[in-house]
């Protein structure tokens, strides 16, 4: 029995998070990314049709209900029609809960689509495959019951049992991920249950130490941000083999979010920084790169950082950076001068030391940069709005 397992596609998601300082992306980035998500989903459906898969499992967060465009519903219908009669099992997830306003309820779906809408286990029999599919879904963002934690009662009937759901396995919770419908793996590691198709974690995560049931998260088939960097996958699962289930991650990323460190200590100019960043480009899928600037900040780094990154950004789908450089000695050096610039720098050093929070520290750092630059008649340009080609955030 061959299955396609995916989850957390988050169609129509928003990339508003990218609009922050230290991120550069081209105009229409969000739109392109959302189109990418559709393309990735379309690719999976084509694969299901060509392989051919016996069933497709979508373990929640297929789309984001709050932002859903209704042409996406038409797109999904078209995709599901495309692979008909391959059955598609969808478990409503946290971001696409099956509320009254959900298209899962309001819209008509092809007959090969079965949606698990309630947070209780229900089942669908596949007589042709001698299999039973169990599933549950979210009827609101935070359902009151937790069938995953309660487990799934099965009878040994000689059929293949597969379950699909959206929830967080506590033992493999990634850092920063929040617990929703959380459960221990042993609660679902049941004799007779061959495979548990899960969704919620955005990185591919096989659940280890299970004796009866193969449990896995495919992660999102396309990266959503730097929180889950790297290549993303969907899963091809084969059941009924003598050696047990075969779970095979298949790369599906069209844009790879990646984080790299860059030591700025010996960077002495804007162009040098641009060159160093451009050197981080790789062949392959489009890259969304987050550069973590480390080392000791060269003098003037802040004043030409934006320009340098803007020049390098052409090589990337998105270019972001985190300034983790060690504070410049320049301020302290200036603070030792008996000039008014020195007094200004001294005042800045003192206020930075006493700054109560990061926001104040950031403001003071900027005050120092602007003030010193003004003494040198080298005031940095103002931050600008999104351009037609690329924007510097």
């Amino acid at each position, binding site marked *: 029995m061959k299955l396609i397992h995916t989850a957390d596609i988050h169609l*129509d*998601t*928003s*990339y*508003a998070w*990218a*609009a*922050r*300082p230290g991120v550069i992306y081209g105009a229409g980035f*969000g*739109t392109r990314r959302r189109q990418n998500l559709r393309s990735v989903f379309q690719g999976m459906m084509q694969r299901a049709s060509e392989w051919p898969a016996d069933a497709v499992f979508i373990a929640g967060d297929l789309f*984001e209900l*709050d*932002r859903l*465009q*209704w042409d996406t519903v038409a797109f999904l219908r078209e995709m599901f029609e495309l692979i008909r009669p391959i059955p598609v099992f969808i478990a409503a997830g946290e971001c696409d809960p099956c509320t009254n*306003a959900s298209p899962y*309820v*309001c*819209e008509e779906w092809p007959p090969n689509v079965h949606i698990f809408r309630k947070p209780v286990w229900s089942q669908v029999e596949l007589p042709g495959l001698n299999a039973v599919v169990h599933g549950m879904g979210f009827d609101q963002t935070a359902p009151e019951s937790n069938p995953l934690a309660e487990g799934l009662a099965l009878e040994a009937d000689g059929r293949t049992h597969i379950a699909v759901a959206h929830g967080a396995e506590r033992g493999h919770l990634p850092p920063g991920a929040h617990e929703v419908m959380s459960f221990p793996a042993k609660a679902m590691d049941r004799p007779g249950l061959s495979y548990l198709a899960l969704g919620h974690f955005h990185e591919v995560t096989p659940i280890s130490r299970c004796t009866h049931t193969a449990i896995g998260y495919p992660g999102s088939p396309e990266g959503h941000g730097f929180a889950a960097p790297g290549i993303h996958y969907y899963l091809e699962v084969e059941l009924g083999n003598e050696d047990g289930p075969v779970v095979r991650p298949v790369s599906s990323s069209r844009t790879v979010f990646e984080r790299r460190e860059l030591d700025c*200590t*010996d960077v*002495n*100019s804007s162009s040098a920084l641009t060159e160093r960043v451009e050197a981080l480009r790789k062949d392959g899928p489009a890259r969304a790169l987050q550069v973590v600037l480390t080392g*000791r900040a*060269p*003098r*003037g780094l802040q004043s030409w950082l934006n320009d340098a990154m803007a020049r390098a950004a052409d090589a990337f789908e998105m270019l972001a950076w985190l300034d983790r450089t060690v504070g*410049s*000695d*320049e301020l302290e*050096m200036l603070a*030792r*001068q*008996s*000039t*008014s*610039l*020195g*007094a*200004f720098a001294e*005042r800045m050093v003192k206020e930075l030391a006493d700054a109560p929070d990061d926001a104040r520290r950031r*403001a*003071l750092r*900027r*005050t120092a940069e*602007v*003030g010193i630059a*003004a*003494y*040198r*008649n080298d*005031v940095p340009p*103002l*931050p*600008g*709005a*999104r351009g037609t080609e690329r*924007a510097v*955030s």
Partner: protein
Amino acid sequence: MRVRQVHIDGYGRFSNRSLSFERGLQVIVGPNEQGKSTLRCFITDMLYGQKQGVNARAYQEANDLRRPWQPAERYGGKLGYELDGGQRFEVDRVFARDGEAILVFDDGGADITGTFRAFGNGEVDFAGTHLGLAKEVFVGVATISHLSLDDLGDHDALERIREKLAALADSGSEGGSAAMALDALAKRVTAIGGDDDRTRPLPSARARLVLLDHELSQARELREQMMQLRSERRTLREELSRKRGDREAVDESLLLVDRHELARLLREAEALKERIDTATKHCFALGAVREFPLEKLEDLRHAENLLNTAILERDRTVREAEQLAAQLTEERDLLGGAPDDYADVPADLAERHREATDACREARTEVDRIQARLDEANEGLAEAQATVADLPDFARLSADPVEWITQLVTSFDVARRSRDEETAHLEKITAELDHRRAEIARSHALFKEHKDFLDLAREFELERRIREEQASQQASLLQTLEGQREEAEEKLASYKLLAFLCALFLAGMSAAWFFTQKQVMFIPMGVLAGAVLFYVLNMLLLAKRVSSLKTQLAAPEPAPEEGEEEQEDEEPPEPGVIERLLAESGCETVRELEALFEEYREASAELTACIEVFHDQEERAEESEQRMPQLLDHYRKTFEKMGETIETEDDVQRAASNAIGRYQEYREAKRRVTDQRAQIERIRGEERKLQASLKETEATLSAVDAEVLAFLETCRFDTTAYEGAKAALDAYVARNAELRDRRTRIAMLEERSATLALKREEDETDVRTCEKALEELLSEAGVRSVAQWHVVAKQAREYQEVWERRVNLERELSDALDGRDLNELRAEVAGFGSLPEPPETTRDTLSRQRAELEQSIAELKEQEHTLHVTLTERGAGMRPVAEIEEERAEAERLVAELELELESTSYAMALIEDIARDKHARIAPELARRAGEHLGAITNGAYSEVRIGRDLGISVPIPERHDGGERPEKFLSKGTVDQIYLSLRLALTQCISETGESVPMLLDDPLANYDDARLERTMRLLAELGRDNQMFLFTCREDVVRAAEAVHAPVIRL
């Protein structure tokens, strides 16, 4: 700091070259392009390196420019320096990029590089640590090159100097003053934009953010609405699906009903077919009468009716002629032999007789009516007279009885009200009197026996004061005695102690004398004995005094009080009265008691006045009370005359009303008597006139009667049988009218008989014509009689009915089949096989249900379509929420960034302004003092003062002009301006070091415009300053060398 020596391994044109420097001023001389600037740069680079900044690894341009021109062991060298404190250090540097190195050694040769702070670019901050200056500041301040002086110009030189000075003081660089920084920051703030400037980035971004917020909220709201619409559409679709299911069920029922209907139709068609066959057979049997003219039935009936009618008309005419003949005969018999001529009564005679008769009857009627009126008037007169006789004769009582009675009643009411008021007033005064008495009762009980209370009170108060004074005096005395007692007791204790001590010494002395037997001891012993005696005597006196004082203090009452007590015993009443009154009244002080007495006195006076008023009122009330019975008796008699009885005062009003009523009745009756009498007289006059008229009318009637009788006799009419002329005349007129009628009726009957004879002949002709037409019709039908015609017609009608029935059956069959072929129907029904039971609902009901369902489905489809259109329309104009969110986040980011920029820039401005102002204010006086000294030294006192304001504004007073004037540089030579600048730079270098370490000065030929005298003085000044700050004067001019030599400055020639 003092640079002791340098060794240049390789640096520019220098290669393996060593130079040693003195502590103070030294001149490094050489032609152009001999390395003066190279040496200056070497010193700077050795101290601070060649990196672009403290963190940058990048090199300055000098790194390439200063590479060794000749092959050298290495690109670098050594520099030894000494601090003001005497510590010596040596720096060893390699500038080559591939072998960059820096080492710092102390005077013991130990590598102390690691003790200094190292920057990220590998530099070591030993120079900054020792000099307290960053590289920029050292280069900017300590290095005075000729380039710095060249651009001072002739005009605005001091302003430019000020700018340079401010820039150096502010940033250590000539190009970076606080003012310039503030200017740049202000431009930046303006560029960011405030609330008033809509076109700047920040307000634009804020406005954009507001728009996007609005759009986002609208988009979300629209999404909610669309979700609601989609939910409604889902409900509609479910409803539509359910309706369609219902319609299918109805369709199935309808199909079943239709099949049953077809089966029933077939059964009916078969039955109709059978009946058609039967009718066909019957028609065949009646085929003989198929052509019978049934349509002539009406003609036949018409002809038969015409014949019968003609016969009846003829018979009636015959009967009518016979009756008319009998009537004619009877009328002629009744007329008999009556005369044919008779005269009518003349019209005027009849008219005059009728008028005379009517006038006579009317006159009699009038006489009767006037008699009746006279009787009626006589009766009214009698009745009015009887009424007057029954009432009192008010005419005798008063001319206007109503006014008189009203006045009587008013007078009585006034008297009565006056009495009541007086009585009420008396009661009120009585109540007030009682109230006052009750109020005063308590005070009266207190003071009734003490009318002289005020005198008693005054006496009591006087005595009280005396007692208080006595008590005060006694207390004072006691206090004095107590003090004396305490004092005496203290003295007593002292005396006891002294006596004891003296006795003790005396005993000691006695014991000593006993053992020593020295007579000299008698003197002190005698003194001591005397002292003991003195103290003992005093002790005894004081003891007595204390005892006496205690006795006095213990005495219960002083003597004077006892005396008073005796007095009180003799005259106890007066003080006792006041105290008793105080106790009884509840007053605490005599003042309160006096106030109470005053109140009592006032209340007593008011009570007396009130009693007097009471007595007066009592008299008035009694008087009023006595007058009322007399008045009542008088009224009783008066009203008896008017027929009214008065028992009590309340009856007066009633009696008056009754009396007025009687008077009005009396007055009415009198008026009626008068009126009736006048009317009787009037009627009697009319009666007389009517009697005369009646006689005249009766005479006229008699004359006319005679004339009538004469006329009737003329006509030979017997009048004897009638009473009076009128009756005879009426009978004569009636007889004439009857004869005239009868003759007219006979003439009419004769005319009618002739008409009937003609009509009888016509009727006979009609009968014959009708008989002929009927015979023709019968012959056409082939029958002989009407009866036979009817028998055959019945058969023909039966044929027609059967035939019509057959046609109808065929039509019914055709209608039932509704275009179907019977055989096809049979085949179709046969195909149904066995049908299930039909539904209980009828087809109409099912059809109605289906129609309703169709309508519902159509409506639902319409609604769904409407929703679909609405959704499409709304969705078409809606941007994706994610897109708006992204754009909004971008705008928000921009706003935050710009706000941060605005905040940071504004804060930087504020800080820089404060700091620069403070810095300038602090540095200005010291700078002015030193610069003035230097300028005075250079100009030999020609310009001995440099004024520097808080903003570092510079002015130099010109002695010849006796003022500081505006723009003094206009009056100064270029050389003087150079000297002012040099003075200021020297002063600034002296002031600038943070650590206090002297800063070496590198002067790159700044003395170009100096005359010999000032050059010499400048050199002396530099030599003098060189005692504190090491001076390197780089020059290519020999006059400078000579001047230096004149002040014994060492000269190093390159």
